[in-house]
């Protein structure tokens, strides 16, 4: 790249500026994160209930899941699922006489990060449910609410204010963890940053630019989480 290029030109969204690459990377980051987050919430709710209410084998399996998945670095899980996992899947498929599938980076990313998020969410939800005064759940039971209804009408709204800070944390971390997906060649914001920086050798410019983009994602998420929190904290006296 010619040295006469000003810093602003380097960040321009149109080639030869690298802004477009960063923006596209940011979009992939958001999409991967959103997918993984939703998968994680679903797993987490089921997992938390299972841990609290399930029988012995269910609890054992869930304990195994949360400890193992939380213990193994995401990077190793991603590598494992992407290489060994697709290999195994295709072997099963071919044994069944089915055509091989190509698991692309996006699906692998969402699946792996979602499974990881699910383990953390299980713990966050479990803690949040335990923090609900028992009496409130008993009152629901006393009115003949079925477990499902009880969960939807009483437990869920009551656990959310307890869980939201943890949930927000997980969202923040999944937007960053999505960077790991670069190992299977999926280009999101972190990798886009490295490519731009490595190409131009303007390391700081691009680190800062990408920090700004991540921050923008966060600030927007914060607005959403703050709105959720003020909604779900209604009924609680404000100053503790």
């Amino acid at each position, binding site marked *: 790249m010619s040295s006469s290029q000003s810093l602003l030109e380097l960040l321009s969204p149109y080639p030869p500026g690298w802004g477009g690459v960063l923006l596209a990377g940011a979009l992939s980051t958001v999409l991967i994160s959103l997918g993984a987050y939703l998968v994680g919430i679903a797993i987490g709710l089921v997992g938390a209930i299972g841990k609290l209410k399930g029988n012995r084998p269910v609890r054992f399996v869930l304990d195994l899941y949360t400890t193992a998945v939380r213990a193994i*670095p995401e990077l190793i899980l991603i590598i494992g699922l992407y290489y060994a996992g697709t290999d195994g899947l295709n072997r099963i498929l071919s044994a069944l006489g089915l055509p091989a599938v190509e698991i692309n980076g996006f699906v692998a990313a969402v699946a792996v990060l979602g499974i990881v998020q699910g383990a953390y969410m299980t713990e966050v939800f479990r803690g949040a449910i335990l923090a609900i005064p028992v009496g409130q759940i008993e009152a629901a039971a006393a009115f003949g609410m079925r477990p499902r209804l009880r969960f939807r009408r009483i437990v869920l709204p009551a656990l959310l204010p307890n869980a939201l800070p*943890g949930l927000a944390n997980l969202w923040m971390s999944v937007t960053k963890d999505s960077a790991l997906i670069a190992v299977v060649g999926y280009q999101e914001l972190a990798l886009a940053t490295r490519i731009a920086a490595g190409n131009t050798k303007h390391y700081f410019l691009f680190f800062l630019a*990408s920090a700004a983009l991540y921050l923008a994602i966060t600030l927007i998420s*914060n607005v959403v989480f703050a709105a959720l929190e003020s909604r779900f904290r209604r009924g609680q006296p404000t100053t*503790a």
Partner: protein
Amino acid sequence: MDFSWIFSYWPLLAAGAVQTVLLLVISVVFGFILAIGLALAQVIGPRWLKLFARGYCTCLRGTPLLIQLWLLYYGVGSLLPMIPGLRASFLWPILREGFFFAAVSFTLNYAAYEAEVLRGALLAVPKGELEAGRSFGMSSSTLLRRIWLPRAVRIALPTIAGEVVLQLKATPLAFTVTVMDLYAVAYKVRQDTLLVYEPLMVVTVFYVCLTLIITRAFKVVEAQVPVRR
């Protein structure tokens, strides 16, 4: 499966494991202390402190740890040699080390995440229990030390356990500032020996054991106060 490499690499592996554990312990301990301050600042601090703490948490949770680490190490760190005399001073051997920067930035980052968890937990403590403390004339600091904080930490325990494990898994990033932690050693072994899975398996076993220890420890603490369910 080929694990013969372990014999020639075990000193490196052991050194790497020590680095990993050190980074974890340093960042969790100091980060937690910092987090208490940040959480309190957000809940009961004066306006300016509240804003500062909010801003701090937003920025540190809002950008990837990797980029914070780089900005600190390659950014701030590269300005340091310009300070006259620093290169000759006794501080230079520390400031030159990636470990120092990794420990600092992990601590700052962990504090931001933990502060957020603690903030929520502080708000979740039933108001009446705090009033009971005040009614006995507890000063704010006694109330905090004896009732509010312990109660909040209890509420937050499962989440804190999760954050600690997350922090464990963040330690491999230190490799990008030349710290040879366990993951870096495994990476090196993979490149040297071209074994794809075996080094990762060894590392995984280590991380799983460490995680088990962490979660067990938290379970023991949690069980101190029985929960009626």
